[in-house]
């Protein structure tokens, strides 16, 4: 073990309280309603979304810039995802997919764009989507509401989803097990994908950020160590590129989450005449 100060790339994911509130007792449960940096970020994200649509939602035939942006965000869900994947039966589910897409998009983008405020102690740009608890909640909500919707729409017949036709009795029974595993692992993959992408991206950014500072400080000590300015500057160039990459990943992961939710919904809405 060396005595150098350790680089702590995981420190940014620690949750701490911003506003302390007294514990509330409901029945036997002690609930701590304190506002943590995670909650604060989600509140700010929700306010940004609501304010954005309150300011830009108009009915002009020729849209201005804000309305065009709002409409193209809506069209990503309506005309790129739900329209081609589900078809006409998908219209009722556009609001849910849109809400899912927008909240993940805003939280992802906030954690990259406003990341500088975290250094200043204003904790409203916490990377909420890099918490497995949050992505897990979103994934479980999506998966089970789709699963329950299947039973509501099709009744017990929906269980034939796990039956692969043309395999015989024993082959079919074996396939039911495999199909069930691959079906119920979906919320896990859905949650892990968003979580892993955001966590990985932020860890890499934080690592290269600390390289810039550590090597810069080393270079300031003079002598041969001055050469350390070169890798420090290289790391800085890299971090500029990585931030751009993170922006792409932030948008892409929100899109992918919404796309997979749409694909899962498609199996329920078009059950029986898709495959």
């Amino acid at each position, binding site marked *: 073990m060396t005595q150098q100060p350790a680089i702590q790339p995981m420190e940014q994911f620690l949750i701490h309280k911003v506003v302390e509130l007294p514990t509330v007792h409901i029945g036997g449960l002690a609930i701590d309603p304190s506002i943590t940096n995670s909650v604060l970020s989600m509140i700010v994200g929700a306010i940004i979304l609501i304010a954005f649509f309150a300011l830009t939602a108009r009915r002009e035939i020729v849209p201005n810039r804000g309305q065009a942006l709002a409409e193209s965000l809506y069209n990503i869900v309506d005309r790129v995802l739900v329209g081609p994947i589900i078809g006409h039966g998908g219209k009722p589910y556009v609001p849910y997919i849109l809400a899912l897409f927008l909240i993940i998009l805003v939280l992802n983008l906030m954690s990259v764009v406003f990341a500088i405020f975290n250094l200043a102690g204003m904790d409203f740009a916490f990377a909420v989507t890099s918490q497995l608890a949050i992505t897990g909640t979103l994934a479980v909500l999506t998966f089970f509401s789709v699963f329950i919707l299947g039973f509501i729409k099709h009744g017990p017949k929906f269980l034939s989803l796990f039956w692969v036709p043309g395999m015989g009795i024993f082959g079919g029974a074996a396939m039911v097990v495999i199909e069930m595993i691959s079906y119920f692992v979906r919320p896990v993959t859905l949650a892990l994908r968003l979580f892993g*992408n955001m966590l990985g991206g932020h860890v890499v950014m934080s690592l290269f950020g600390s390289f810039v500072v550590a090597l810069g400080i080393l270079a300031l000590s003079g002598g041969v160590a001055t050469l350390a300015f070169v890798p420090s500057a290289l790391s800085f160039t890299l971090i500029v590129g990585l931030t751009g990459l993170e922006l792409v990943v932030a948008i892409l992961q929100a899109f992918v989450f919404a796309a997979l939710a749409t694909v899962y919904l498609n199996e329920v809405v078009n059950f029986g005449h898709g495959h």
Partner: protein
Amino acid sequence: MNAAVADFHTYKLIGAGLAAMGMIGAGIGLGVLFGNYLQAAIRNPAGAASQQTMLFLGMALTETMGLFAFVVSLLILFGV
């Protein structure tokens, strides 16, 4: 720090590194995916845009396999 704890720590780091090797497969997979998409898109540019959603879906599914390895690696590093 006694020897057994130091050994445990060392093996933990080695294990985390080995677990992260699972990401090699995801890397190859993503290369195949985007390479084939590009090849098809150059042959038939008119049909390329319509398949972009499927491209990103495939990317997401492929990437998950790598992320499993990443998460296992993190679990070994910070969880155990």
